[in-house]
């Protein structure tokens, strides 16, 4: 399966993989990954623990050498020779914050700014902006070891922002954060999208992925599905209209068979699920048919399957 649908077709993609594979001895962590992520896209990379998500990110970040296949990041082929050039254009936020706990927040950021080759005046400005973005300016001179887990995660996010990267790999960026801080991080990712930064987001928070991501990939050793969350839901479950009435219909078959676009219906008592081609076309017609049949409508609308439903269906289906 290939995920070749990107949101922005005018500029070259930020990430391309072709048959990307990584094996550690006999253990295959990633197998034949074909993926395309558009520039400026927020792309969710979902999968169970041990699915190979981190290995994929590490290959794209030039930390691991692929066993087979090719990849391009920020327009540069992923090779040993290009590793420094790629790492100059990306930033990686691993799941663990990875701060020097005996250094102050500022010293941590200065160190990484220097490794990214930022000048002194630029460094001061960017550190201020990055800390402001994660709302930690007041902690600038505190030792990293004195911060809470959530604050450390935010400093790590500030570190990832420093180099103004073209592509950011974020591994569970809201892990350990309270709801308010999680919301701030989501807002930050929205800002990155507006600045045309490509975000490759690895997360277990499916509601977050659903809210943030232009597209998601469900991955377990190889790619299972990729697309917009609503597309995946429609592809997997079809389009379903949910009907709830005050009392059961006397003859539901006669009512629903008169409405074009309903391919299948099921239901009991006063609740019915209609599998339809296009909810926007069918819902008004169903409403008319139900009113014509004298039914009192309590609820009528497209049933939204969450990304979690899609994920569980794909992953559990695979497990079975």
């Amino acid at each position, binding site marked *: 399966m290939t995920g070749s649908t990107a949101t922005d077709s005018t500029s070259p993609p930020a990430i391309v993989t072709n048959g990307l594979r990584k094996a*550690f001895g006999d253990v295959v962590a990633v197998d034949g990954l074909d993926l395309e992520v558009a520039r400026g896209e927020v792309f969710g990379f979902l999968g169970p623990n041990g699915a190979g998500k981190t290995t994929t990110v*590490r290959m794209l*970040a030039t*930390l*691991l*050498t692929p066993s087979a296949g090719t990849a391009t990041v920020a327009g540069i082929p992923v090779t040993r020779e290009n590793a*420094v050039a790629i*790492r*100059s254009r*990306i*930033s*990686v936020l*691993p*799941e*663990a*914050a*990875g*701060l*020097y*706990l*005996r*250094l102050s927040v500022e*010293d941590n950021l200065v*160190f*990484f700014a*220097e*490794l*990214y*080759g930022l000048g002194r005046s630029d460094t001061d400005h960017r550190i201020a902006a990055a800390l402001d973005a994660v709302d930690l300016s007041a902690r600038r001179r505190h*030792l990293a070891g004195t911060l809470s887990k959530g604050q450390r995660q935010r400093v*790590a996010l500030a*570190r990832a922002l420093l180099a103004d990267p073209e592509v950011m790999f974020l591994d569970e960026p809201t892990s350990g954060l309270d709801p308010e801080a999680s919301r701030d991080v989501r807002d930050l990712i929205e800002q990155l999208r507006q600045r045309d930064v490509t975000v490759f987001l690895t997360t277990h928070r499916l509601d977050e992925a659903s809210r943030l991501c232009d597209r998601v990939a469900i991955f377990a050793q190889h790619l299972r599905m990729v697309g917009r969350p609503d597309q995946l839901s429609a592809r997997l479950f079809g389009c379903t209209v949910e009907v709830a009435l005050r009392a059961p219909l006397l003859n539901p078959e006669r009512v629903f068979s008169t409405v074009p676009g309903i391919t299948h219906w099921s239901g009991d008592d006063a609740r019915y699920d209609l599998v339809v081609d296009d909810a926007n076309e069918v819902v008004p017609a169903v409403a008319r048919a139900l009113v014509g049949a004298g039914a009192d409508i309590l609820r009528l609308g497209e049933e939204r399957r969450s990304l979690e439903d899609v994920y569980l269906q794909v992953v559990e289906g695979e497990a079975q």
Partner: protein
Amino acid sequence: MTARVWAILRKEFQDYRRNKPILITAVLLPLVFAVLSMIASLSVGANASPDSVESIVGSAMVLLLIIPVIIPTAIAAHTVIGEREQGTLEPLLSTPATDREILVGKALSAWLPAVAISWLFFAVYVVGVRLFATDAVFDEVGKAHWFVAQGLVTPALALLAVFVGMIASIRSSDVRVAQQISALALLPALVVLSVISTHAVTPSVSTFIYAFAVLFALSAVTWRIVVRLFDRERLISHVG
């Protein structure tokens, strides 16, 4: 020196400054050796025979020449495994810093304090001997070959100790194990040093120049091993 090497060097110093185990090893242990050297040298009486003076000063010098070995075993053992234990290895390796920039920065951060502290204690020792020891002791300490030893052998010994410590740090799964391995690996060098300093081989300028050449050659070989072992893929595969 590139800006990245300088950044790594400065970060390491900032980190050590608040790392008590490293500070204790890097300052207190050398201090103990320096004090022992001083006590030995001050205990020589005015009537001591020239052989006795030579032997005692030789022993004191052995203690002083151990200092550049002790400090790197504490610092260099932290270089890679310390990053891994803190969870900072992956963020560090994800930056544009090259292997050589990381390794040179780390090596310098262990080598510079080792040499500086060794020379500082040697200077204090010489001044102390001048002020409080007998003239015979001072005359023996003031012989050219001991200055050549400090000037050449101390930096070379520190360099070898740094590289051995880095190898241990790259290959170990724990800082303490890395420190123990790096200390053990330096025993052969210390044996050679002891042979020279205890007059089994007569100490002379040429002896210490040879020792420097051997240590430097060993360091060059060890550096190549460090560079070869510093494999991002292997290091990162062992991270979480």
